[in-house]
């Protein structure tokens, strides 16, 4: 019952019902609400566990970075009074405290963790920290308390540099936006200013993923539109048969579909052999492990996501509108563009949005058929999760991807309007 109806009924209800009955009815309504809520509770819990909690953890992980602060709290406390913008390294007293802490880490076999963290901002320091830690294991702690600095220098000359202490201090921050800076190809210099990084990777990969996703969306629309139109206007028998062909790949495993594209596209694969046998080409094309392989196979894989919403919307369009336009003197093409096309927009935008959002974060297909230039941002996120163990950076890259999609969704809402989407 809508709000308006309720308020219209309200006076009448009040005049005929006693207070007791009113209370009864309110109780009933509360109960009904409670039951309705109980029905959606499993869904709510599921969404919380499977969706909101992981995303929240990811967002948190991209800024929360307590590892170094937990490993060398004492050193960081000593470093807090040191001016990292100057040209002098910290006093020997600070270094002594670090030496003692490093020995503790070595004994607990945690020095590698510190090495990995510091190495991230200053490549090459992991071995410095680990080898020094190994040597310190055997030394007397009392000796390190007084002579730690000298022992550090004797172990590796790197400890005399100012930079390593700067990095140590800056990595000690528990909440930091550094991962986001890296994800945007930025860095802080020794004065704390934000500058461009030496290696420029991530922005270009975002742009590339965006480009590939748009290309796939465009292609699925071009291919899907006429097909859906045909499906929607054909006789039910033909439409049903063809629908099976659309749905059949949809039900097939994603891996199977991707692998069959490998068989089709490889150098001595079906496509090349066929083209060579009809003498269309003399040398086989290089198709697999390229960007076009990613685009072709993903277009095929995501096509049903475009066709299904388009079809269901087109099915609901009354053909008499089109006929009316024609009978009123419109030529077929203008009639199509001005009458039919606008009516399909809800389906088209639903399909486009689905295909775009799914494809921008796609992982498995580019990893398998993309080779080098078919890589997308998801593949580099996987690299940082699995090989480099830089989970903070992976989280930052993932959060930026989420932000990018939300921004595009907002833009889309402004331009087309989300209320126009129709999924079926």
């Amino acid at each position: 019952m809508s709000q308006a109806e309720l308020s219209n009924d309200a006076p009448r209800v009040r005049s005929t019902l006693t207070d007791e009955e009113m209370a009864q009815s309110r109780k009933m309504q509360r109960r009904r609400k409670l039951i309705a809520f109980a029905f959606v509770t499993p869904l709510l819990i599921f969404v919380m566990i499977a969706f909101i909690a992981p995303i929240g953890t990811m967002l948190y992980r991209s800024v929360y970075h307590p590892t170094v602060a937990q490993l060398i709290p004492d050193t960081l406390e000593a470093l807090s009074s040191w001016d990292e913008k100057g040209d002098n390294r910290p006093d020997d007293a600070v270094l002594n405290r670090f030496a003692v802490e490093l020995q503790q880490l070595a004994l607990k076999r945690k020095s590698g963790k510190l090495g990995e963290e510091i190495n991230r901002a200053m490549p090459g320091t992991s071995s410095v920290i680990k080898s020094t830690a190994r040597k310190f294991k055997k030394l007397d702690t009392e000796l390190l308390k007084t002579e730690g600095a000298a022992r550090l220098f004797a172990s590796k000359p790197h400890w005399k540099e100012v930079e390593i202490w700067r990095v140590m201090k800056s990595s000690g921050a528990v909440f930091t936006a550094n991962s986001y800076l890296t994800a945007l190809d930025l860095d802080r210099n020794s004065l704390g200013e934000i500058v461009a990084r030496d290696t420029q990777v991530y922005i270009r990969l975002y742009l590339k993923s965006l480009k590939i996703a748009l290309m796939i969306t465009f292609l699925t629309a071009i291919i899907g539109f006429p097909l859906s139109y045909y499906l929607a206007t054909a006789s039910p028998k033909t439409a049903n048969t063809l629908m099976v062909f659309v749905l059949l790949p949809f039900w097939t495993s994603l891996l199977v579909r991707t692998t069959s594209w490998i068989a089709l596209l490889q150098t001595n694969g079906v496509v090349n052999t066929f083209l060579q046998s009809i003498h269309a080409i003399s040398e086989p094309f290089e198709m697999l492990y390229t960007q076009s392989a990613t685009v072709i196979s993903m277009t095929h894989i995501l096509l049903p996501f475009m066709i299904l919403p388009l079809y269901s919307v087109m099915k609901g369009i009354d053909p008499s509108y089109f006929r009316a336009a024609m009978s009123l003197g419109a030529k077929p093409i203008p009639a199509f563009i001005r009458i039919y096309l606008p009516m399909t927009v809800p389906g088209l935008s639903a399909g486009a949005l689905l295909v775009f959002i799914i494809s921008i974060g796609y992982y498995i297909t580019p990893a398998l058929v993309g080779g080098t230039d078919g890589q997308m941002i998801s593949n580099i996120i996987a690299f940082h999760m699995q090989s480099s163990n830089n989970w903070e950076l992976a989280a930052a890259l993932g959060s930026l991807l989420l932000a990018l999609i939300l921004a595009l969704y907002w833009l889309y809402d402004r331009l087309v309007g989300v209320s126009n989407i129709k999924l079926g």
Partner: protein
Amino acid sequence: MKALKRFGAALALCTAAAPVMADQFTAVSFGGAYGAAQQKHMLDPYMAKTGHKILFENYSGGIAEIKAQVESGNILWDVVDIEVIDLERACSEGLLEVFPHDTLPPGDDGVAASEDFSPQALSNECGVGNIVWTVLYSYNNETIKGGQPSTIGDFFNTSQFPGKRALRKRPQVNMEWALIADGVAKEKVYDVLATAEGQKRAFAKLDTIKDDLVWFDSWSQAPQLLNDGGAVMVQSANGRIFDAIQSDNKPFEMVWDAHIYDLDVWAIVKGTKNKALAEDFIRFATSSKPESGMQDVAYGPTRQSSYTYVDPAIIPKLPSAHLDEGLQASGEFWADYGESLGEKFNEWLLN
């Protein structure tokens, strides 16, 4: 009621008796022909001998999964087969248990373990060397043009040997090869690669063949590319090529010049409940006879006493017979520069 009580008692007996009957733990390795060889020569004999049950799982290397398990305290793996490149990191980050090397059994010929194993196999406190394997390049006799390549320089010589070359998409090995092909002495490679100029030099060398390169992600793709004509030369783990030659009679040749060899190591995940059992398994798996079984996939045993069980025809095809021509991958270098070179490598790929 009586029947129920009896049933309960029987049930209690069953559950109490179960752990006595057999213990169970999980071992993880790389699968494929290598995993099959381990199953046949290490896991199956151990299970037959002790009655314990081992669940054998596959992974694709790296320490991410081990890290996740140790950090969450939910240990699912007990024993892992890990590359030395990752072992260094995993051990110093406290993700692995320390393995008591002095408990390793002597070789079948009676030589003490400390003498029998190659020094690299016991150089890390967290593990015991399992195999010596290597990355080399291989060509297909049927598709190669311009003669028979024999050096790493030939891999970069596209004028004499035209055609696509396939490399695994990562900086490891590729950077080393570029420098060696550019004239850097093998023993200097990692020193040079640690400098900015050295890295530029390696990328510049890779630039010379960039248009002829095909990239792949897993070793299984290497023999496939060589076979279907996707490339005339491919970088590969030696076992994969050996397997293709041995079991499928493929016309592949291996080039041993500047191969980059490394060890695989059995190690124990930190915090496992089956530590004693896992140690016992590793002691068994790295003893002379099971070790020699790795010849099935042309990976070299890490202990001398195993070689008496190795087919003499296979010995020249094992990496251990070619150590002089090769270079050992530096776990320390890649722990230092793996991430930064990985980023630079990705940048280079995008250019």
